[in-house]
């Protein structure tokens, strides 16, 4: 058993970290303050290989796995969890096309998604709720070879910048009246398809979150991602594996930010004539943050390695649940360590807390994760 990263993964992390330090860190506070989405950085993310890190080389990707994808997200989120949200949702929609799309769809969309010229999105949540996928109302009706789609999605990341969005739609009912769902890709600019309200969020700024409105949108049957009627398992699989892994990776980035900032502050700040780090009460807080970070790291990368080996179960839910709660705890602890400095916006501790809170409901609340973990646990033990 070996919990170490390979030499290549270490080098990849260093490369992504260098990029994040130079291209993201200097701007992260400004993006947050101005609620600005830095679209100009997307081609650079493409060039770095972050946008298509897990996509095979024949579609313009790097050809690596989900461990490397999580490394990329952790490094981006270390400085901007908001920007990492854009990348994660892009991976989520892209994964649906990669895993279930036709060869034609892959050839058409994946190269642009890898080089950063096309951002991808995945739209599931509706005003009626997010976790209740079976209760979705957006409807697609097939007439010949054309879908007509009507409905409204909300809280959709990349709502205002995605070139292609994979939309989960109700496409019928089975004999027992249960909904049949399909996933359909809609390109930006398609008539009747437009972003609606852009949300004014508490945190996770640096990415768009908003509505998507579909008013008699007509797309060809060939835009169906996966088999018609298989939308539910496709959506649940991508949310469950790619989505929750991503959220845990973003939370891990926030946790590392809390850890590094806590240590730096405690070493520099002098109180009672000595550094804060000499005080046992501060050391206890630092130890708690470190434990939260290390536990989250092990849970996430273990799950990602299992996914790459093709045998992941509820591990991503465990990692997501643990890391999201840990990130909130640690951001609060950082603020406590920093005292007044933690509360003023000159320092990023407040941003970490707002971002960490925003991560909790994304891709399933903690309660949903616990239900999934409990479900698997009750079967397994």
């Amino acid at each position, binding site marked *: 058993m070996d919990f170490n990263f390979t030499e290549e993964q270490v*080098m990849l992390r*260093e490369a992504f970290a260098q990029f994040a330090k130079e291209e993201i860190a200097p701007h992260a506070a400004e993006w947050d303050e101005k609620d600005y989405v830095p679209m100009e950085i997307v081609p650079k993310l493409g060039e*770095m290989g972050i946008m298509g890190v897990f996509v095979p080389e024949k579609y313009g990707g790097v050809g690596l796995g989900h461990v490397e994808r999580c490394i990329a997200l952790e490094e981006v989120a270390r400085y901007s969890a908001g920007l990492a949200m854009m990348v994660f949702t892009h991976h989520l929609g892209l994964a649906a096309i990669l895993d279930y799309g036709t060869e034609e769809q892959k050839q058409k969309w994946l190269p642009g998604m890898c080089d950063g010229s096309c951002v991808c999105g995945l739209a599931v949540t509706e005003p009626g709720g997010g976790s209740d996928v079976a209760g979705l109302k957006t409807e697609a009706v097939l007439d010949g070879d054309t879908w007509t789609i009507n409905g409204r999605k909300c809280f959709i990341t990349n709502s205002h910048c995605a070139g292609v969005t994979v939309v989960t739609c109700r496409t019928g009912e089975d004999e027992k009246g249960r909904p049949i769902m399909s996933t359909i890709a809609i390109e930006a600019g398609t008539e009747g398809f437009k972003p609606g309200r852009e949300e004014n969020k508490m945190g996770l700024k640096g990415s768009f979150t908003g509505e998507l409105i579909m008013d008699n949108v007509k797309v060809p049957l060939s835009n169906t991602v996966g088999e018609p009627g298989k939308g539910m398992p496709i959506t649940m699989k991508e949310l469950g594996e790619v989505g929750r892994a991503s959220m845990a990776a973003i939370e891990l980035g926030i946790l590392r930010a809390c850890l590094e900032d806590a240590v730096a502050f405690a070493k520099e700040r002098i109180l009672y004539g000595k550094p804060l780090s000499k005080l046992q009460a501060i050391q206890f807080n630092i130890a708690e943050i470190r434990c939260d970070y290390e536990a989250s790291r092990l849970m996430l990368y273990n799950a990602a390695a299992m996914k790459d080996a093709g045998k992941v179960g509820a591990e991503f839910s465990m990692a997501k649940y643990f890391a999201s709660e840990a990130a909130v705890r640690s951001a609060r602890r950082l603020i406590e360590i920093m005292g007044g400095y933690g509360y003023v916006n000159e320092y990023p501790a407040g941003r970490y807390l707002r971002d960490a809170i925003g991560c909790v409901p994304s891709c399933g609340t903690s309660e949903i994760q616990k239900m999934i973990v409990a479900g698997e646990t009750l079967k397994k033990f």
Partner: protein
Amino acid sequence: MNILVLIKPVPDPEREKDIRIDEASGRLVRDGIPMVIDPESRNALEAALQLAEKSGREQSCVFALAMAPEQAKDKLVEALAMGADEAYLLSDKAFGGADTYATSRTLAQAVRKIEEDKGFAFDLILAGTSSSDGGTSHVAVQTAEWLKRTHISNVCSLDVNGGTVTAIKRSEEVMLTFEGEEPAVVGVTRDINKPRFVTAVGIIKARKKPLTIWSAEEIGTCGDLTGLEGSPTKPGRLFEPEQGRAGEAIGDTPEAAAAEILQIIRKAGL
């Protein structure tokens, strides 16, 4: 165009505070400090890649050469990931403890061997002028002297046209332009360019690029010409000078402080 870049792995300059000097041996204690490619070596590699791209990447080659313990191999993989085509690592206990005289002599010997093996001479050898650890600014120049090639250091702008090397060097007050003929050895500074990032694709491509490790014997050198034995420099006592300065608070108000500052200046006769 064929270019060789001298790469120096150094302890991470961002961890400067953690680097100590061993009083007994007078050497840097590098244990526990991660190694990185020296920042100016990175600039040299970027300059080489840009020149190769300008003269036609397919017809050019960029090689990287380092003398370092075998653990530093990943720094050469990083150079390959940045875009170098081939890399050579000189690694042998016999190289340990080398001063710049022995280091440059060993590097020059390796350059001759690469050129002999490949059947061509490098048009240019690029290096950082001054490394972030030793900072002697000797190695590029000394390597050129061993090879009897034109050299110039502290270069902040570089171009090559028809075998003529044009280098601009910044001095305190003026910019000096030099011209020389290939083959030449050029030491660059950090303001020559912004090195490109290592990308994920670059790392994947590096898997397939050749990286050769040579011992002292393999490059045809031996103990008394290299390493500690071949080094005439004998370091004296190394210590960190006391840099603390006594601070003094003056004036309760800005006006009082201004008056007091004026008095201090006058008293100092400035």
